[in-house]
């Protein structure tokens, strides 16, 4: 008999080891008398006492076995479920422990996630995502896995189970401005997207048709991409302030949403222009020749041939643009554009880490959601042009 390899999933092994070390050596939560003092560490074993705690950690035991499961559908499926449930279980445990600590403590006392929680949660999620990819799940399948974990956490949020955690106390204090900030953030991105598409698509078409346009446009946009965002916001302040002074009553100002939208547009142009041009370049010449020879008008060739065939590459550019803009819009808070960045910076300046998280977590969720939605769009567009059916573009 030949010996079979014991280890089947090196990624899972790495994640499990990281989670195990974090479980033993790193604090799971931090408990502080108020938001300004640094907390005392609460280790995982202290948080997981009792029957409920043991149940919540059961998926973790399953996770320990996943590196040694054979990469069959069942094995990988189990790994996805174990990773996802482990992460959700950690959140539940944190909520339960925060509620327990809150009893008999002052209202100002704070229970926060500590390093151990983050390492273990990340390890669980990454294991699940990696196994989902190995299972060959498409964009929609992977999104369903992410959605299921998010739903488990959302359930706990809605039930009030997590209310004693510090980040939710920060949320409770800023309930009104939080919704505004999310909306404002999304509006900044959407507002930048309109001029980006209006300028970027025609510019991309021009770069595809006339080589000289591409040679002129791409170096400029590449340079813009290398300018740090803070610097670009700063650079726009002076001319816009001057313009505002020249046109009193126009509402133009060096700070606020306008310079933010302009800067975001500058950053967003490169992926849109480049991917529009590359997508059109990829339409096979014989297909256009045949279309022309059959009597399609130039407009019909663009709409019926060029557009659908270039769409997957264009959507990849749009995905890069949106994800990038969601992140950059956070920095725009520095010049008074508002949005989730404003909450993050408030937290930074007040040294309240949970307030930073309250701003940062929705930014990440927005970016992930935009990425996932556009990935589905790309997969659908790729599928519809019949290239590699069922597989999404990278």
């Amino acid at each position, binding site marked *: 008999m030949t010996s079979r390899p014991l280890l089947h999933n090196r990624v899972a092994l790495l994640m499990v080891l990281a989670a195990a070390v974090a479980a033993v050596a790193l604090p799971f939560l931090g408990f502080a008398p108020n938001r300004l003092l640094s907390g005392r560490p609460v280790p995982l074993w202290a948080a997981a006492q009792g029957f409920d705690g043991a149940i919540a950690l059961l998926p973790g035991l399953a996770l320990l076995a996943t590196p040694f499961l054979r990469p069959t559908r069942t094995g990988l499926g189990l790994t996805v479920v174990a990773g996802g449930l482990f992460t959700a279980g950690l959140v539940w445990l944190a909520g339960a422990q925060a509620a327990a600590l809150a009893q008999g403590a002052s209202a100002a006392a704070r229970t926060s996630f500590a390093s151990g929680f983050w390492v273990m949660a990340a390890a669980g999620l990454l294991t699940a995502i990696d196994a989902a990819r190995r299972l060959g799940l498409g964009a929609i399948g992977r999104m369903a896995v992410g959605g299921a974990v998010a739903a488990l956490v959302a359930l706990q949020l809605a039930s009030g189970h997590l209310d004693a955690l510090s980040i939710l106390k920060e949320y409770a204090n800023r309930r009104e401005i939080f919704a505004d900030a999310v909306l404002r953030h999304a509006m900044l991105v959407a507002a930048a997207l309109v001029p980006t598409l209006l300028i970027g698509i025609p510019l991309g078409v021009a770069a595809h048709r006339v080589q000289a346009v591409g040679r002129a446009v791409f170096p400029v946009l590449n340079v813009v991409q290398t300018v740090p965002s803070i610097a670009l916001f700063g650079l726009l302040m002076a001319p816009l302030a001057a313009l505002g002074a020249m046109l009193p009553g126009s509402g133009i100002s060096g700070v606020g949403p306008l310079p933010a939208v302009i800067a975001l547009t500058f950053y967003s142009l490169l992926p849109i222009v480049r991917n529009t041009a590359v997508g059109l370049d990829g339409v096979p010449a*014989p297909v*256009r020749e045949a279309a022309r020879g*059959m009597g399609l008008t130039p407009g*019909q060739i663009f709409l019926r041939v060029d557009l659908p065939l270039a769409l997957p590459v264009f959507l990849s550019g749009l995905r890069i643009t949106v994800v990038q803009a969601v992140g950059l819009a956070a920095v725009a808070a520095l010049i008074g554009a508002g949005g989730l960045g404003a909450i993050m910076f408030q937290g930074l300046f007040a040294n309240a880490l949970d307030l930073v998280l309250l701003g940062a977590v929705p930014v990440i969720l927005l970016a992930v959601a935009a990425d996932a939605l556009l990935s589905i769009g790309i997969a659908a567009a790729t599928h519809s042009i019949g290239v590699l059916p069922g597989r999404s573009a990278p």
Partner: protein
Amino acid sequence: MIDFERVTKRFGSWTAVDAVSFTVAEGEFRVLIGPSGSGKSTVLRMINRLIPADEGAIRIDGVDIASLKPEELRRRMGYVIQSVGLFPHWTVERNIATVPGLLGWPRARIRDRVTELLELLNLDPRRYRGAYPHQLSGGQQQRVGVARALAAEPRILLMDEPFSALDPITRASLQTELSAIHRRTGTTVVFVTHDMDEALRLGDSIAVMDHGRLIQCATPLDILTRPASPLVRDLVGREEWGLKRLAVETVGDRARRQESVTGEPLAAETPLHRALSEMVARGTERLPVVDGDGRPAGVLHLSDLVRPTSAGTVSGGPAASGTA
């Protein structure tokens, strides 16, 4: 009818087509042949105005095509290219339906036409109607390409080396099908190739081009027996000249009508080189011939292959070409 009158096309300082005049009759199968850069494809692409002519006039049924809208002109013609150019994001059905759709045919008529064309090109409609181009072999893709070109029942079919990229077996069967389609529909065909065997096999007439000029325009028989220049002779080639010569005439052309003999008969439209092959295979010097309805149509003798007997046949003989 397609009429070229002293048509010239220049690309910069290079004259691609130089004062070419010719006429393609209604229902004719005209092959354009010549070496690379001879201007044959340019001539073809001027017929549907993919390339505009610089000088001269191109008329279709007496109407100067410069006076028509290019798109309307093109929708009246079929166009097939070597690289096929099927729309990869459309099914076979939608590809074939392109021009009828542009012309606003009713849905039911388009559907019936697609079925008819798929059957005509030996593609099972149930299996291939909903298939995407990437699911088809190269030969099947070109079958769909030809079906797409024929979809709106064009009176003119333009084909630019349509079978050059296919393997010999697929090419031969598509040539046979194209010949049959041409006979049945009476469509005027202009067919560009660089393969003389294909030209001899398909063309009612062959136009040989070189350096933008028309060197010779004649029947396959005349191209073989009366080449107008050394270039035409080279294009035909000396190898198996005799077999090519036989291939452009049919058994019916030379059979002795009054005689009869027993045996498995040959159809009158069989090319003579097949008849020779058949005689060698059967070890006989005489074969019975039947006409299209299966009635006896005489006997073909081995000696008839070397000494043509039927009236009106011009014989140049191998000596006219084999002078080396």
